[in-house]
């Protein structure tokens, strides 16, 4: 991001950047940064908190007056992620014993997913390679991948397997938002999905199977967050 700041400044556009990794901001030597020790993925700090977001922007814009560059100021509030405290969303009971438990679970979350879809005005991150009706089929591909470590057998390539993993994660996390009475802290729904559902551990098992089979690291490593791979 600092590289872009430098290009824009050279083109005659004044910039101020929000930083989430302070050492990177220090190293790139762009003129103005406001560093927020906020969760990765939340550079304005707090979703849904208009006043907090405005405060971040106003603090950043105040740096535009500075010419003693490079300048990096710190936002005074620190917000940590809470990956170690998984969200406590109720999972649906077993409904159709003929289905794989993970597929049954995903289908049971459909009404929650739909509620969040309505709440967001139709905006969803699901749909890279599968729409919501196809989530169960994609989960079964990961079951095959975990069992065989064969991308061919599962019907994936290195691009579609990452995209499919993101579709499933988004489906669950968006359903989880609907099942929460507030927006959970950063990574709480991530931990819920990868650690407490039927489906999350299947994606982890698939990634581990690919790693063990010697598949290219860029394929399996980016299938799920690094902190969820252990």
């Amino acid at each position, binding site marked *: 991001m600092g590289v872009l700041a430098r290009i824009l400044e050279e083109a005659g556009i004044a910039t101020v950047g929000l930083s989430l990794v302070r050492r990177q901001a220090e190293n790139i030597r762009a003129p103005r940064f406001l560093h927020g020790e906020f969760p990765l993925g939340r550079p304005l700090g707090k979703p849904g908190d208009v006043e907090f977001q405005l405060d971040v922007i106003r603090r950043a814009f105040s740096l535009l007056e500075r010419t003693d560059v490079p300048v990096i100021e710190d936002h005074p509030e620190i917000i940590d*992620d809470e990956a170690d405290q998984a969200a406590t969303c109720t999972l649906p009971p077993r409904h159709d014993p003929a289905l794989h438990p993970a597929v049954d679970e995903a289908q049971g979350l459909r009404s929650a997913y739909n509620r969040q879809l309505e709440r967001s005005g139709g905006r969803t991150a699901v749909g890279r390679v599968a729409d919501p009706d196809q989530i169960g089929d994609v989960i079964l591909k990961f079951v095959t991948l975990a069992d065989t470590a064969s991308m061919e057998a599962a019907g994936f390539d290195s691009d579609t397997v990452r995209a499919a993993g993101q579709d499933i994660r988004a489906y669950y996390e968006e359903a989880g938002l609907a099942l929460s009475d507030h927006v959970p802290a950063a990574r709480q729904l991530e931990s819920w999905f990868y650690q407490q559902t039927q489906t999350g551990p299947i994606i982890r098992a698939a990634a581990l199977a690919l790693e063990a089979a010697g598949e290219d690291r860029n394929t399996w490593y980016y299938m799920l967050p690094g902190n969820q791979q252990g």
Partner: protein
Amino acid sequence: MASDGSIRDRVGDIPTPEFASIPLTEAPPLAEARVALVTTAGLRAAGDVRLWQPTDGSFTVLPGGARDVQLSHFSPNFDRTGFAADINVVYPVDRLEEMAAAGEIGSVANQHISFMGAQFDATFSTILLDSGPAAAQVLLDDDVDVVLLTPI
């Protein structure tokens, strides 16, 4: 340590290009400034389902009125639920519109820009030589004079 803490430790000193000087443009008074967002979150316009590739140094132009933008970053290593709940926590278009309406900033650009951060190409050659200047021209053509940069 929080999960983000270990990532910050790991990526904080990833090699970056070395620059001898620091370019600086003087900003106009904020109440007169035309402001755009440039994010490295890897956003795409609605309907564009492609995930960003880790070596893709291109950019996407996002219409200023769009609120159905998609988070299409290739990396899974950050929280995505904040953006799912409120795009402004990454891409604060509504906050800029509110500040313009209140007279705190002059105006909001007609369009904004997204790149994708965490590029595998540590030289940033495509962005430095090609897509970065092209994105700047898109903003200059819209009379933008201030940019707020946001990461993910």
